[in-house]
């Protein structure tokens, strides 16, 4: 059968369908109109109309994080493209496979400062894994194929495809062929780790007395969580996850010592600073983890498994680098341990030390029990109530600030891909649109967006999108009437001089706001009412509920690493520190 002739716009959408994409998030405009016409004429690829291009990319990103499949966003040229930039940077920093298709002015107009022209390739260059400017209509299917391949393979990341309007000209037709294979020059994708390194890694565990397994977002991206858990069980030493890695190892397991780093648990940070072996899989010794790199892990041998060689020895030099795919490498390690056996009792003394740390200053996961005279709600209690109500099974997206850290600390994620947050870029405004992406992927699952009254206002317009498509997300707003995280820093480092962290009396009535979009709004001010309100929200299966919880405005997030210090230098409360 010979292939029919179709135009570039149709080819683009058809190529997406051939790539098994059935959902894209976007916003139309002049340069993308031929593509939008192609969308109208078919029914394989559903287009979700958001209210701001940043949200389109965040939604595609949330979809990708939750499913492991690539997310797709479509925007027009100029302002559409520039609005997408924050979304692309967010995906880039967390290595998320997102393909962003941007309209562009017609090729002959490029460079002429035409209406709504912007150099999208130039603007996005530092925040993409790769980008394409479509040069001919015929190459659209190949470009799409390459874009998805690049976005999803190795260390994933966002790819931009800039499509000049004339490439989708409805009157120019050509034979459509979707490539069955691709030839890429020098595009190595790492798989197995070297056998002798696998053996060496296990030997390091055998000779260690105080090891720790430190796992990051890469483990989740590589779908290696099961392997990480199995390996950790075989070794039996403490396990900690980064902010991006939460859920890779079950948060409710005794072997889990909590998140590490800036707002990590006391025991996780102590373990890191006293360990004699740090086993890093899929993490990158980020500055939120290491604190001062020159004081990091001085006593420890270090193993680093990464699919991106440029992450190795970038911040912290390691003794054993295993370049490879986390899932495959972990399988090799499991094989090795199983065939040689492993005596976990060598870490008994280490565990008694860890347990003592946990007992001394571990997080209190039973704060709902605490009552106070004024019936004030602590933000941690909101997360604990959310955890209880959803049985720890919800997808939780978040924004950026204190609420994000409380969610990370107190919602004990049991499974990978359920904690969705902007770790690398720290993008306020990410929470709601990413929750939309998750909800589209898993309509039956509970999806909560833990946010703050500051962050939620950065993409609040998406309440309208949620109304249009009937997305019953539960928005849990930890309303402390301030840019809490900034305020915390001003408390600690600027003598309580609160510069521009208050909205004074200008906060909207979130209940009325939600209602105006056709949603349900519930305001909670008393601790005694918190659990019931939380349950009531989740019981409304087909309603978006905006749960506006007024929390203690003076609460700080602890522990907190002291700037410039080692990982054992922490503030534990407003008046207690370890240094």
């Amino acid at each position: 059968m010979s292939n029919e002739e179709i135009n570039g716009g149709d080819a683009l959408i058809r190529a997406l369908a051939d790539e098994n994409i059935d959902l894209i998030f976007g916003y139309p405009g002049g340069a993308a109109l031929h593509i939008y016409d192609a969308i109208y004429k078919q029914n394989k690829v559903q287009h979700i109309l958001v209210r701001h291009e940043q949200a389109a990319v965040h939604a595609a990103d949330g979809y990708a994080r939750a499913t492991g499949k690539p997310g797709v966003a479509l925007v027009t040229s100029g302002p559409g493209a520039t609005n997408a930039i924050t979304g692309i940077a967010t995906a880039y920093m967390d290595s998320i496979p997102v393909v962003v298709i941007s309209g562009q002015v017609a090729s002959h107009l490029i460079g002429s400062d035409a209406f709504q022209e912007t150099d999208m390739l130039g603007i996005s260059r530092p925040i993409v894994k790769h980008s394409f400017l479509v040069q001919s209509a015929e190459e659209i299917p190949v470009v799409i194929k390459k874009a998805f391949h690049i976005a999803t393979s190795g260390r994933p990341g966002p790819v931009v495809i800039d499509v000049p309007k004339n490439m989708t000209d409805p009157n120019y037709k050509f034979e459509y062929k979707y490539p069955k294979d691709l030839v890429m020059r020098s595009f190595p994708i790492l798989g197995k780790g070297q056998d002798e390194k696998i053996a060496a890694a296990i030997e390091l565990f055998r000779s260690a007395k105080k090891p720790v397994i430190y796992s990051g977002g890469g483990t989740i991206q590589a779908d290696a969580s099961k392997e990480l858990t199995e390996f950790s069980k075989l070794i039996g030493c403490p396990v900690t996850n980064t902010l991006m890695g939460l859920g890779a190892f079950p948060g409710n397991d005794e072997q889990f010592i909590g998140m590490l780093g800036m707002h990590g648990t006391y025991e996780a940070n102590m373990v890191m600073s006293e360990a004699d072996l740090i086993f890093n899989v899929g993490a990158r010794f980020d500055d939120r983890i290491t604190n001062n790199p020159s004081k990091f892990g001085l006593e420890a041998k270090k193993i680093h498994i990464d699919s991106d060689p440029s992450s190795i020895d970038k911040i912290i030099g390691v003794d054993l680098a295993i370049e490879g795919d986390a899932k495959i490498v972990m399988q090799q390690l499991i094989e090795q341990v199983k065939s040689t056996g492993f005596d976990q009792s060598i870490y008994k003394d280490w565990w008694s030390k860890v347990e003592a740390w946990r007992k001394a200053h571990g997080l209190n996961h039973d704060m709902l029990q605490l009552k106070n005279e004024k019936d004030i709600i602590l933000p941690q209690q909101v997360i604990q109530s959310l955890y209880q109500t959803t049985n720890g099974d919800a997808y939780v997206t978040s924004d950026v600030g204190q609420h994000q850290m409380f969610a990370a600390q107190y919602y004990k994620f049991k499974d990978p891909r359920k904690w969705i947050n902007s770790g690398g870029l720290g993008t306020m405004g990410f929470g709601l649109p990413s929750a939309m992406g998750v909800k589209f992927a898993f309509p039956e699952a509970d999806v909560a967006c833990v946010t703050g009254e500051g962050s939620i206002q950065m993409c609040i317009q998406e309440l309208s999108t949620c109304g249009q498509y009937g997305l019953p997300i539960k928005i849990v707003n930890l309303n402390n009437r301030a840019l809490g995280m900034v305020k915390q820093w001003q408390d600690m480092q600027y003598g309580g001089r609160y510069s521009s962290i208050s909205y004074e009396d200008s906060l909207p009535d979130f209940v009325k706001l939600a209602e105006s979009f056709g949603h349900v709004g519930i305001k909670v001010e008393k601790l005694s009412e918190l659990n019931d309100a939380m349950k009531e929200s989740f019981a409304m299966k087909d309603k978006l509920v905006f749960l506006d919880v007024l929390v203690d405005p003076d609460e700080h997030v602890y522990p907190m690493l002291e700037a410039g210090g080692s990982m054992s230098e922490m503030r534990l409360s407003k008046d207690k520190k370890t240094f």
Partner: protein
Amino acid sequence: MASQISLLMENQPGALSRVIGLFSQRGYNIDSLSVAPTQDSTLSRLTMTTSESREVIQQILKQLYKLIDVVMVQDLKASEFISLEMALIKVSNKSEVISKIEKNYSSLEFSELDNKKEKTILRLIGDTDTLETLLVELNDDLIEVTRTGALGMTLGDVSLETEEETKVIY
């Protein structure tokens, strides 16, 4: 001496800006840069010199190789290599300049490209350090200078070649 990195990249619009962008984005310094197509017209070869430390150069090599448009990267210093560059200089007092070069810079190749005008253009070829020393000495005599930046190539069997193509089948 500065380190030299050679790379092969797709001869495509945008490829060069990704390489250069990487340097500014990650705060690496480039001392010189030269780029042109190779015998394979789909590939360009780029040579750059940088005075960054060994550790930073290791990072640069990895980051460069990570770029999709970069096909192969080579740290020339890792094996025996030759390096040279060419400069064109315009001078008015030709004879003085030539005698200075002949006296102290015998390792530099030079020739006169234009002897019909008062102001003469000389072509100099040699290693970068020697060229730079000469240019400092000639400073007051120089009207115009343009340089190619260093070019380099490893000796013998060690060559900058493309790897086999990876075919991805679905």
